[in-house]
């Protein structure tokens, strides 16, 4: 039990680390000379969500408001603002919903911790079961003990017969 738990802990830390790293990768990007290209604007808009629509990334949102927001990004880029500053501006003005995932701070840690913890809980249960099975499996297996269903169903019987035949021929 103990080593399993420790392994699990290490795994949790590892998973969390990966998740954090994924969050950070979208940080700074090189600034573009004026006027910023559509691609530079879209690169940032892609990471933001339209504040007034539901679940629509800003780079593909067709509404007039979104077009204006993209223009806003272009202006800010032209002023030399970094991607992080632009995102912060959007969060300050329109709320955390513009981010494509909430920042892992405060209560929002829950968003990132709960799935791995639950998954590991399931994994632990499974490994626990495996260990008991394995222990018994290491004892010599006698065919009769496996109960009434130990005779594999038809297709398996067929395949194993084939394999036996093949072996003989070799």
């Amino acid at each position, binding site marked *: 039990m103990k080593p399993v738990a420790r392994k699990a802990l290490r795994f949790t830390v590892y998973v969390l680390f990966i998740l954090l790293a994924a969050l950070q990768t979208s940080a700074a990007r090189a600034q573009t000379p004026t006027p910023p290209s559509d691609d530079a604007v879209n690169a940032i808009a892609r990471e933001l969500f339209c*504040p*007034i629509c539901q679940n629509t990334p800003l780079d593909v949102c067709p509404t007039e*408001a979104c077009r*204006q927001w993209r*223009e806003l990004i272009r*202006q800010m880029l032209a002023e030399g603002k970094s991607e992080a500053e632009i995102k912060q501006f959007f969060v300050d*003005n*329109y709320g955390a919903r513009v981010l494509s995932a909430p920042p892992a701070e405060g209560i929002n840690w829950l968003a990132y911790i709960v799935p791995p913890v639950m998954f590991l809980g399931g994994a632990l249960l499974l490994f626990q079961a495996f260990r008991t099975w394995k222990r*018994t499996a290491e004892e010599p297996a006698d065919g009769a003990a496996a*109960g009434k269903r130990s005779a594999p169903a038809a297709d398996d019987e067929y395949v194993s017969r084939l394999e036996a035949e093949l072996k003989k021929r070799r």
Partner: protein
Amino acid sequence: MNESTQIPPRRPVPVWAQIFIWTGLLVLLGFLAVALFRAQQPIIKEGSAVPDFTLSLFDGYEYNGAEQVNLLELRGKVVVINFWASWCVPCEEEAADLEAAWRLYQPGGEVVFLGVDYLDPLNGLTYLTKFDITYPNGPDTQGRISSIFNRNMGVPETYFIDRQGVLRYIQIGPFQSAGEIQAIIDWLLAEQ
């Protein structure tokens, strides 16, 4: 060990697991029930008190010399709160009517109009200049004010608050005429 390779014993679900499962299910259902309840109901109903909020005004706008307005300080006056956005086409239909109504009531000092610019790119001031809007206006930063009134704000929406700070009338969508606005305000002014 060999006996156990026959049919395993009948093992019911342990009590702790049962408690765990039922609690989990009930918590889940509880959250869904609350979410459903909230989705079904408007946050604020006509007849209920409006929670306090502070609106920071745009540059060039002021109320009683201050750069922000606090709803609580407006107690005793009839308050008209209009949510709009520069990208909102129907808002333009009613902009002139609202301003006309404001100019009508401003001298009396008993009615206050507040314009709240709902999640707008930086074109709010352009819009205000275009329609020559003079009553206090400010941005709805992070949607904090609109979320008091309606989680799914669909501008324009206008809320009328009486002298006691109670929400009395909700207008979803634009007004057709300045007369409509006046009728509601006069009704609230008539109360003491």
